[in-house]
């Protein structure tokens, strides 16, 4: 069975294009990504609070709500400056993190509060497993005493004076400092603060030491959705940050594709591509039909005294010869 030359060229190109299209179509699987419709995504949250996903913290409007969920990448000083300006302008920052880079934000904003980084376990008041403890809502209108299911949560420590506590774990919970997966004698006992609100500048910072309460698989449990709704309220523009989410190979490929599209859609790139394509087409045309004639004309332009007719005949001969 012979393989045509066209097949050899077309098959890899088709494969590549198909891969690109499918990579583009299949939703991302990154934790806490508002475009991720899987169990670990935030698509449900983004839909019900009508949040806009942003890839740059500078894209927020003043006096809006910015949700930073599960940040894994470092925050630069420029970004901290943007967050400070956002809060001074009356914005509300909801920082939901457990083991990520959320403490960089707290430090950068000059707050004393920190996310501890150890896991809260509850052998008694929990959903299915001790890693999914129940937390009790305080200080949120119409929700006091209701409950939220946590998922591998951490605790907030060293709260600043004037902080308002919003969510605490049960007295039966413990902070697994030794990391042995159980509540040993050395582990401190609850209740622990899981969410708190702090006034800062003209705005507010809400710290939640468990970003997972907002993932798609957790939103339907207990009052998780109502709690988040209570934090956000209604009528204020909401933004969800994507720029600090962790990467997977798949997401990196998607991101690369996205960036390529962004670059290609810039005016400079469009004009450059158009020029290059025009040149390629022209070259193909010259090389397949009249490249020698064009070359002969170029020679005539340099040597006007030469006989154009003879040169063109020469070019045609050469073309015949090449064929």
């Amino acid at each position: 069975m012979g393989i045509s030359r066209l097949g050899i060229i077309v098959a890899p190109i088709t494969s590549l294009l198909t891969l690109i299209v499918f990579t583009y179509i299949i939703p991302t699987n990154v934790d806490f990504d508002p475009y991720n419709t899987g169990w670990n995504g935030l698509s449900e949250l983004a839909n019900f609070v009508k949040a806009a996903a942003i890839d740059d913290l500078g894209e927020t409007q003043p006096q809006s709500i910015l949700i930073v969920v599960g940040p894994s990448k470092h925050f630069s000083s420029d970004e901290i400056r943007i967050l400070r300006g956002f809060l001074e302008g009356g914005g509300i920052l909801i920082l939901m993190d457990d083991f990520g880079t959320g403490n960089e934000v707290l430090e950068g904003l000059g707050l004393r509060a920190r996310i501890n980084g150890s896991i809260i376990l509850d052998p008694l008041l929990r959903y299915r497993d001790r890693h999914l403890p129940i937390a009790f809502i305080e200080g949120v209108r119409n929700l006091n005493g209701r409950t939220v299911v946590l998922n591998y949560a951490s605790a907030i420590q060293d709260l600043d004076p004037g902080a308002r506590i919003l969510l605490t774990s049960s007295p039966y919970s413990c902070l697994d400092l030794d990391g042995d997966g159980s509540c040993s004698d050395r582990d401190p006992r609850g209740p622990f603060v899981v969410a708190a609100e702090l006034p800062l500048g003209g705005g507010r910072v809400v710290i939640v030491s468990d970003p997972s309460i907002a993932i798609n698989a957790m939103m339907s449990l207990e009052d998780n959705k109502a709690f988040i709704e209570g934090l956000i309220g209604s009528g204020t523009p909401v933004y969800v940050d994507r720029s600090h989410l962790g990467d997977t190979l798949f997401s990196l490929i998607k991101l690369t594709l996205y960036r390529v599209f962004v670059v290609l859609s810039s005016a400079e790139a469009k004009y450059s591509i158009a020029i290059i394509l025009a040149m390629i087409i022209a070259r193909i045309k010259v090389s397949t039909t009249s490249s020698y004639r064009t070359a002969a004309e170029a020679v005539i332009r340099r040597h006007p005294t030469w006989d154009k007719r003879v040169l063109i005949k020469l070019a045609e001969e050469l073309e015949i010869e090449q064929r």
Partner: protein
Amino acid sequence: MENCLKITAAAAIIAIALSLFYHPLCAASSPPRHVDPGEIRDDLPDPLMLASIYAAVANHIARGNLSEALKELSKAGFIYLPRDLAIILEQYNKLLSQGIDRVNFSKASLEKAGKLLLRGMVVDAIRDLEKGLTEILAANISSREAHRNAEEIKRRLGADVGGASRALERIVSETYSEISAEIKRLEDLESVGLESTILTISINVSRAWVGSPVEIVGSLKTSSGDPLEGRRVMIFIGGVNISVNTEVGGYYRLEVSLPTIYIPRISVYAVYMPSKSDELRYRGAVSEELYIELLYIVPDISLSTIPDRVRPGESFVIEGVVDPPGGGVAITFLGRSYGVDLSPTGSFAAKVEVPGDVREGFYAVSVEVYPRGFIGPASASAKIYVYRDPSVIEVKIPRIVIAGLSYEVSGRAATAEGQPLDGGVRIELPWAFMSTASYGGVFRAEISTPIGEATGEKVVRIVFMPSAKIYREAEIEERIFVINPAYVAALLGFAYVTMRISVGSIAITLRNIAALLQRRGGKSSIGEGVEIQAPGDETASGRLIVSDEVVLIFYDLVEAVRRTAGIELLPHMTLREYGLEASKALGGAGQSLLRILKIYEAHLYSPRKTSPAEFKALVEEFLKSLAK
């Protein structure tokens, strides 16, 4: 074409499979920040902790704190168990909750019956108690049922949760005995038949200074107007109760001082509760409720702070005057309280420390005046400004840096007057935060530029945090230019490729024409008397491309035919036309020419190629025959 389609289809299927395959493989999972709650296995609760929650419920029940017991029990509603066990535990909680509610109701009926009894409403009291008795009997059933559930939970989970149901059984039993006994007592009273009593009260004033004496008088008589002498009547005045005995004619009189409480008014009323033999003769009575408006002075407070601005770690004096002087003052500042005595003229002064970690801004100092006699409580506050002295920093930082290399940043920290300052220094780079410290007013740090940092101008912020809290933080912003060699190389490479693409095609074709001309000895075979020099100097590189040697040999042949027979290969001619015309003119040698042309034609247009050596031998043989 069919093969091409097959390959394309296969490639597309492979691509789809690959894209579906690598998608789940690429999921990040380490370390886990959460688990899918739908995928995890149920984990049974710790039996000891489960028992502890019900032990707390039992404790509250035993102490009679039934509302607390219910609150504690509500926590048990959040205990997650597999469905079969959850049903048993839910039922246990429900029975406990019902039992506690019923005991609560029964106890409330006891209390209500007591109040009705005071008003002589014995029948109503008995009716309420009977309702309470019904509820407590139901509670008894709930507690027994709950106990059976507790046994089952212990059997299946190993957790002894039965303490709560046992406590419930005990309180049910106690309440039952209490209500039964009260019903019996009231039924005895009812069978005897009680006479109503009338209790009156009056006060000599409607407004009075706090603590001043007032006179309270009244009487206690039966409904038929007979005075009840020597009976104890309780007077309730502003939450305080005082007893007094009735005298001749059933009258009572009492002179008391009004309580020193500073509220607008207080209520006064009297209560008669029959005791001993009266219990079987008279019903209790409550007088009407009277009110006394209380009078007291609210003092004026004037305050000042010296100085009105202070730095963290320092102290200031708060002084003021209370007019008229009260019973002393309490000063509160940033959560700390100080008690201060007042001078006879009402003036006071106190030294207040400012904590070292206070931020800059206005803070309130509140003063509360304690009441004394007719002088009531009062409060006021003053504001003091906490400030810090400025600090300054100077930084030396390279203006241009190369990505991937390290550089030193150094600087000095000092007061505004130039005194060196110690403290922490935070360097906020666009790609990282760094910390260092200033000793003797000098700091130094090495910053490394990431190898992937893009070329461009970057902002670096340096923040100095003085150790001495009396100094303010200082910050400075510097701009550096990062040059990334990889980016520059990529740009140059792109420029070079673009240039090559744009000029390459003309150069290549020029070279080919030059090669053709060279093959012909620098002369055209076309056109009379026209000579063209080979444009070797026109090529871009100066290198001439030697084309197919067979073609070169063929053109030597054509030139020989032209010289010998005057037949030219014209541009419009095919090889066959040329061959026919030349063979006619060449006679016998024409056949050889036709054979050579056929070979040449096959060489040009078919896969059958001839070697230059073979072709050259043929042509040389032809040229020899032509010469003959």
